[in-house]
């Protein structure tokens, strides 16, 4: 073998080694991504059926709409300042249009005060409006105007809420303000929240169907599947 041939031979081997290393590198990284995908996928699946403990039963004190006497109860733990909850708001309304005559809908507070500074006040605003029979009206307004009041200071947000009570709901604003600051109203919010914490709720929105936690439906089609099944179970096994 000449010197040149030797160098070529060496060069060839070096290239072969390099290609091999790169292939190994790709395999390693593909393995890493497969593992990450697997972990994310299995974490998502477990989410739906974690029943750490039941949530408190629906009582007279709960806010119920649609067909309140239905055996099929869709319950939402929600936060008025949560953008994800707001994105569910039109979806729930659409579900209500279709199933409102056959299904009951319950709203419970789960204000994540650590990241949503006006969420607790918003929950109190709905309860205070609820004292004058306008809970759902305030609920709708607060979701619709979320972007407006979410970044405000606590006092500005409170006066915006009072403004809604006065100008849009046309309720007795003096009574509303007293209720808004009252311990009774704060307790209603806290009670919802602590019941949910005990049941292991840690994010919003969280949905329960007949007391069982469900994986958040992504669209109305998923709601239909779940509700249709619950409705057919309710008719075959009336309680």
């Amino acid at each position: 073998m000449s010197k040149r041939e030797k160098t070529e031979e060496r060069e060839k081997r070096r290239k072969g080694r390099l290609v091999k290393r790169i292939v190994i590198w790709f395999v390693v990284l593909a393995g890493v991504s497969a593992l990450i995908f697997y972990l994310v996928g299995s974490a998502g699946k477990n989410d739906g059926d974690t029943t750490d403990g039941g949530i408190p039963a629906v009582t007279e004190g709960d806010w119920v709409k649609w067909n309140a006497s239905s055996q099929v109860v869709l319950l939402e733990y929600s936060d008025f300042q949560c953008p994800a909850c707001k994105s569910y708001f039109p979806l729930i309304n659409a579900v209500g249009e279709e199933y409102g005559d056959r299904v009951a809908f319950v709203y419970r507070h789960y204000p994540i005060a650590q990241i949503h500074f006006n969420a607790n006040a918003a929950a109190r605003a709905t309860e205070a409006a609820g004292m004058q029979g306008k809970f759902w009206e305030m609920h709708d307004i607060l979701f619709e105007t979320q972007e407006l009041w979410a970044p405000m200071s606590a006092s500005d947000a409170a006066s915006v809420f009072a403004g809604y009570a006065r100008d849009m709901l046309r309720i007795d604003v003096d009574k509303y303000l007293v209720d808004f600051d009252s311990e009774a109203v704060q307790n209603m919010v806290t009670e919802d929240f602590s019941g949910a914490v005990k049941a292991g709720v840690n994010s919003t929105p969280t949905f329960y169907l007949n007391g069982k936690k469900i994986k958040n439906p992504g669209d109305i089609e998923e709601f239909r599947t779940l509700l249709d099944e619950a409705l057919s179970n309710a008719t075959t096994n009336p309680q």
Partner: protein
Amino acid sequence: MQQLTPSKIFVITLIVISVIGFSDATYLTAKHYLDDPVTCSIFKGCETVTESKYSTVFNIPIALFGVFYYLFVSVLLFLYMEGLKVLKLLLLSTTSAFFVTLFLVYLQAFVLNAFCMFCIISAVSSTALFAGTVYIARKSRTLAEG
């Protein structure tokens, strides 16, 4: 040629950073395709950022571009370590990625008013890769000139 390259450890560090960026981007991509619809939680905050209309380009999640970018850079760094002349390409890729990063951070800070932790990790690793390759390039030039 060998003496022009900065310390091997430095390049290996950059490879490690690119792997971190790669895993991070893969995680965000997996989340995009597999996870539940949006939620807010005490620990993770709200997924405003990863669910915003800016999180995809032509329906492809930006995180997926990140996956390929970090993969590409890690291979380039690998080749560079093996003595191939890829420094210019490396510099070009990390510089353009750095500008993309600046834009994405701008979106989070001023348009969405929300940050996502895994996006910040990616921003940090992409900035580190940019700074690292600029450093290598400058050092190689000084060595070549001196």
